[in-house]
Structure formats: C-alpha cells, structure tokens
C-alpha cells in the first residue's frame, strides 16, 4: 500500500529577500520536489503605457528610465531609436558613439548587479560587495556626464542632453584598466568555486527549441547555444564598426543552458563590453551633440517596431503615431516579462533550494515586467 502524499503549496511571497523585487511565486511541492511554479506579477504596475498616451514624445523619456531601472540608458536608447526611425531623423556620429559607450557601460553595471545578487542568493556574500564597488565607479562616470546615478533622462530624441565631460575619456580609461583584474578576481572567487559549481551546474538546463519558442532572448538564449545577438544580427547605431565576440554557452561545467552557463555568459559579456568601450573611445569623432534635436517631435502617421539588445534580452518598442504630438500607443516588449514566463516549465522536477538559483540566473527586473 503506497502512502498518499498531498501537494503542498508554498508561497514565496511578495516580500522575500531574494525574489529581486515584488514578485510572488506560488510553488506546488511534493515534499521538496517542485511540480509547478506559478508567478504572480502586477505588484509594480504603474500604467506606463497609459501615461505615455497623455504626454508628448520627449516627455516620455524619464518614464522609460523607470521601467528597467538597472539598465536605464538602454531603455532610453531603444525609445529614442524608435522615434527617430519613425521620423526619419539622422543623428550626428558623435551622438551615436556616445550612446554606444553609455549603453555598454550600463550593460557592465547591470551585469554586475545580476552577478553580485546571484552570488548573494547562493550564500557567497563577499562577491556582492566587490561587484558593487566596481559599479560605483561606473555610476560616478554617469554622474559627471548627466548628473544622475540611476535614472538619467540623458538620451533624447535626436541626440543627447549634454556633451561628454572633459575628464570622461581619461576616467573611462582608468576604469577599464582597474576593472580587468577585478573580473579575474570575481572568476577566482565565485565562478570557478567548486561549491558554486555544484549549486548551479546541471541545474535546469534549457534546450534550444524551448528557448526560442518561449521567446527567451539575451544571455539566457545565448547560454542555450543559440548565437543570436541583436547587435550583430539586426545591427543598429554604430555597432557594426566594432570588433567583438558573442559568447555562447557550451555546457562547460554541466549541460548546455544550465544555470552556470547563464551566469558565465554574463561574465564574458562584460569582457566583450570592455572591448567595445575601448574601441569606441579611440574612434569617437567630434561634433555637436544637440544639433539634430527637433524643436517639436511630431512623427507622421504610421507605426514602427524597433528592438535593441538590453542587458536582459530583446527590448522592443512598438509605437503607433497618429500624427499628433502625443503617441497614440506605445507597447514595450520587456525581455524580463517574456523570460519570466518560462519559470513554470524550467523548475519542474527541481528542489525548493534550486528555485532561488534558477530565478537568479534568469535575471529579472520587476520594473520592466510590470511597467
């Protein structure tokens, strides 16, 4: 006679030290093994899309910052790119280079947060502080350019709001020289640590076809072995002028597409971003950064869907314009929104302690999920 076991429902509630924001995960457990995970979102819904319909196009930019608050430069970049393509504006080359430099610095900062908090979830408290120490240097660079550390309102439609500070290039070079040995230190401390590998390698591997069908993009897709990066496959701005690699997961320490792969892809992307920044600050031309900013932003009637490569995946802006000063409809395709929907599928059969590892490896930000 077999024992009848009941399913237990455990709530990892909206307030929890490691759900990366206000997210409620309903776990259906049989003992310690998970049979289903249902995410409940909407706790941070601030009606961005409805607000955008009441404001003019330039006024929407601070709102786009606040969606993915850890990668704010990229949100603005995507939006400005979409409106410029709709209006047919060409921006000066210096502006393009500045946007790329800011975007890549923001990518490094965002990955540092993701890696630090992932280590802290697994129990290694020290790499968290080392990552934040390096992130402080990047935030200082942003502060001298536009005055803000987290939410910038810097990339405007047709240009950027301020030109680079005179010390910016020198400080960026110093940052790059200081940061390269720190990546090595992070690798020694956390990435190749056997306990960390035991916790994350071979946990929840994501096969290629499932990933593409679920719409997963960004480092998660690349960790599953698909070499797809919008900077190379659908290039925008001046990314085609730089020489850099796209790291792809290959199951070094376990299966392809497991949590360790998703983690190490982010570390390697940081190294590639450093290469792009180095090349950009060598090649940056002179020019006037505010010359192409239009006085009134009034796009023609039409619609456009543009996408950029956010640190978390493919950030898409679908803008419908009816010829007036206010956008008719803005829909934001947030990468974390789509990435989170795979939690149920991915966690089946693993243990409660692994849920934290899996959620950390997907790297979500609730601000852009709920918008």
């Amino acid at each position: 006679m077999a024992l009848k076991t009941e399913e237990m429902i455990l709530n990892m509630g909206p307030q929890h030290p490691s759900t990366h924001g206000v997210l409620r995960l309903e776990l259906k457990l049989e003992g310690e093994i998970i049979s289903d995970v249902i995410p409940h979102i909407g706790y941070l819904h601030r009606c961005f899309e409805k607000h955008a319909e009441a404001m003019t196009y330039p006024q929407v930019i601070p709102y786009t910052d606040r969606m993915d608050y850890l990668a704010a430069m990229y949100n603005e970049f995507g939006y400005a790119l979409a409106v410029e393509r709709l209006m047919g504006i060409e921006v000066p080359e210096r502006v393009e280079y500045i946007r790329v430099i800011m975007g890549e610095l923001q990518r490094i900062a965002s990955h540092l947060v993701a890696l630090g908090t992932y280590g802290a979830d697994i129990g290694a408290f020290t790499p968290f502080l080392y990552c934040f120490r390096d992130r402080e240097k990047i935030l200082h660079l942003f502060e001298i350019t536009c005055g803000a550390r987290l939410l910038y309102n810097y990339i405007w439609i047709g240009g950027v709001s301020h030109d680079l500070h005179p010390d910016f290039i020198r400080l960026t070079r110093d940052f790059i020289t200081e940061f390269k040995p720190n990546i090595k230190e992070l690798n020694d401390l956390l990435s190749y640590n056997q306990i960390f590998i035991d916790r994350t390698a071979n946990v929840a591997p994501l096969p290629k076809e499932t990933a593409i069908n679920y719409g997963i993009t960004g480092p998660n897709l690349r960790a599953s072995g698909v070499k797809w990066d919008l900077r190379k496959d659908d290039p925008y701005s001046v990314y085609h002028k730089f020489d850099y690699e796209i790291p792809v997961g290959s199951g070094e320490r376990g299966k392809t597409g497991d949590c360790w792969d998703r983690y190490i892809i982010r570390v390697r992307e940081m190294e590639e971003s450093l290469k792009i920044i180095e090349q950009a600050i060598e090649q940056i031309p002179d020019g006037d950064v505010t010359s192409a900013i239009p006085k009134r932003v009034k796009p023609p009637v039409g619609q456009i869907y543009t996408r950029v490569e956010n640190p978390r995946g493919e950030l898409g802006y679908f803008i419908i314009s009816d010829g007036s000063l206010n956008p008719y409809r803005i829909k934001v395709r947030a990468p974390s929104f789509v990435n989170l929907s795979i939690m149920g599928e991915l966690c089946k059969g693993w243990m409660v302690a692994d849920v934290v590892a899996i959620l950390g490896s997907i790297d979500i930000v609730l601000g852009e999920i709920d918008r």
Partner: protein
Amino acid sequence: MKSAEEIFNILKEKFPGSVTELVADKPVDPFIEASPLEIDKICTFLLESEEFKFDSLMNLSGVDDANGEKEKDEKGFDTIKGGTLSVWYHLESIELKHKITLKVSTERENPEVASVAEIWRSSDWHEREAFDLYGIKFLNHPDLRRILMPYDWEAGHPLRKDYKNPEFYQGMKVPD
C-alpha cells in the same frame, strides 16, 4: 530572406479568405491584415513551412483603434460605440532572418481572436496582457485571466481610450 510582398503573395494564395491586404504605404513597417478567427491557422503555417520558419514571436500587442462613434453614456462620460480593437503580431525567423508584421481587427463590443498560445509559448503572457488591458478574448487560450491588474478588478479594461477609473476598489478610494 523574404520581403513582405513575397510573404503576402504566398499567404494570399494559401488562405484566400482570411488574408485581406498588405498595407505598405505608411511609415515604417509594412503589415498584412488578416481575419481574427483564422489567425491561428495562418500562424501554424508560418511556423511550420520550410520557406518561412517564423520560429519566434517577438511581440503581440492590443491596440484600441477608437474609430467608432463617440457618445455620452448614462453618467455623462464619453464612451465609444462600435469600431474595432486590433491585435498586432510581430514575427521573426531566427534561422532565415526575416520579419513580418500581421494585424487582425475585431469588433469592440465582443472582441474575439483565435489564440496562438499553443503555437508560440511566448504569446501566452502577451495575450493575457491584451485581455487584461483591452478585454480581447482569446479563444482556446490555456489560462486566460488578468495578469497586471488585480485578479478581481471589475471596472473594465484600462488601456481602452474610454476607460474611467472606478471610485472604490474593495472599499478603498481609488486616487485620481
């Protein structure tokens, strides 16, 4: 790599009744209009056929076209009667590297669109969001309920152009 006209022509041959027209004159992307109840058959064809292989749905959004009659209802607020709601699909193929945009329009009073959630699993949550914010019902969706608003929000669908905030929600006053 196929262009929008080629895709439109092949689709028009295969689904003569459902695919209506290709609109390519407005900036920036050309889009194909299709019928709302047949969209799942069209999408299955787009996913599985060898020459298209649209294996990834980038985006699915609801739009309120607001092209009906504006009237005042009992309380004196503006509402829109008649007209359409539309759903826009942005598809791409990672293998063959081409993209296409589809649009379906459905009536405002009882909007119903066939669901593509079983074809591309990424559309599951996007369709829930379109249902939540516009009220578009997706037929055969595995779990159609609200996603961003609270599950028991009774006061309508917020992103419609004629939406008004309710006064009270569960006994709490809703701020302006």
